[in-house]
C-alpha cells in the first residue's frame, strides 16, 4: 500500500504543483522532487539536470512497476448454468406440474435423464457457483476458492407429471473466504 501510494505521485512527477502537495512523495522522494522542476533548481549545469530527470524517471518507472506486485486483493466468481434455479421452480407442485413446464421455467433441457423402474424418469439439472478470494503480496499469496456444484432432480411418472423434487444446497450462501488455513 505504501509503495503504491508512493508510485502514483511519482508518475505524476511532471505535474509538479500537484505532486508537491503530497507529503509522502515529499518525504521519501525529496531528492528527486527537485528534478521534476529543473527550471526551479539552483544548480544550472545542463548535464546534471538531465541526470536528475533521468533518475526521477527511473525511480517513477520502477515504483510504478513494483506497485501492482506489492499488494492486492483478488476476487473471482464463476457461475455454472442457472444459478437461481431454486427460485425458478419454486411453484412446481408435485403431482400436478408437468416436466415440460419445469423445462420451460428453467429455460433449457435437463443435464441428464435416467430411466427408473415402472416407466419413471429421473430428470437432473446441474448448476453451481464458485467464489475465489485472495490476498496477493510480493512474498506471499493466499487464496481460497469455495465451490458448490448442485443437482436439481425431478422424478417424473410415466405420464410426464413431476412426482417429487430435490434441489441441492451446496451453492446456496457460498462464502467469500481468502484465508486458506484452518477448517
Amino acid at each position, binding site marked *: 500500500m505504501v509503495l503504491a501510494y508512493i508510485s502514483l505521485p511519482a508518475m505524476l512527477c511532471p505535474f509538479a504543483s500537484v505532486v508537491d502537495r503530497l507529503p509522502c512523495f515529499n518525504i521519501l522522494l525529496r531528492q528527486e522532487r527537485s528534478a521534476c522542476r529543473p527550471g526551479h533548481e539552483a544548480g544550472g549545469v545542463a548535464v546534471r539536470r538531465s541526470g536528475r530527470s533521468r533518475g526521477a524517471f527511473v525511480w517513477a518507472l520502477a515504483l510504478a512497476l513494483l506497485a501492482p506486485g506489492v499488494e492486492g486483493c483478488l476476487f473471482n466468481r464463476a457461475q*455454472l448454468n442457472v444459478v437461481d434455479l431454486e427460485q425458478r421452480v419454486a411453484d412446481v407442485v408435485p403431482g400436478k406440474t408437468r416436466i415440460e413446464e419445469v423445462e420451460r421455467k428453467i429455460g433449457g433441457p435437463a*443435464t441428464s435423464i435416467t430411466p427408473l423402474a415402472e416407466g419413471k424418469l429421473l430428470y437432473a439439472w446441474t448448476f453451481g457457483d464458485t467464489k475465489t478470494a485472495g490476498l496477493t503480496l*510480493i512474498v506471499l499469496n*493466499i487464496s481460497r476458492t469455495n*465451490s458448490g*456444484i448442485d443437482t436439481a432432480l425431478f422424478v417424473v411418472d410415466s405420464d410426464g407429471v413431476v412426482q*417429487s423434487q*430435490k*434441489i441441492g444446497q451446496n451453492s446456496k450462501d457460498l462464502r467469500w473466504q481468502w484465508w486458506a488455513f484452518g477448517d
Partner: protein
Amino acid sequence: MTESAWPRRVAFLGVLLLSAPLGCAFERVVINEGVRSLDPGNIVVGRTDHLGVLRELGLPPPEFPEEVGTRGVARDYLRYGVFESRCFRIGFEQVLLISPFRWCTRFRPYELGVAFDERGLVTGVYEMHRDGVWPPFRGEDDLPPPVVRALQGSMQ
C-alpha cells in the same frame, strides 16, 4: 548524483524489479462443503430404496464442473463427497515465467456413502473423515488414517 553512481542504482533497481514478482502462494480449493450438512437420519437400512435415498439426499454432486453430465447414477454405491485441493508454489507468474516449484495434494476430507444391495435397498450408510496437509511442509505419510464409521448398517 554523479554519473559514476548510475550503474549501482540501475543494478539495485534491476534486482528490485526481478525480485518483486517472486512470491510463494498458498492456494486452497474446497468443493461441495455443503455435503457435510446432509442428514441421512431418515434412511433406514433394509427398507429405503435407491430412489428414496435420492429423494432424501439428492443426487451426488459432481466434484468438478467438467464432470457435469458425464456420469450416470451409480446403482450400488452413492458417494457424497467434499473435495479439497491444497497447493503451495513459488512462482514468477508476473513476468510470465512458470516455475516448477509447485506442490499440490488433493483429497476428500469428508465423504458420506450409501451402499445398496442387488435389490436396490440400502445396506449401510457410512461417513469418512480425513485430515489434509500442506505439501511440502508436511507429507501425507504424517497423516493419521481416515476415520470411517458406520452410521447405519454393517461395515462388512
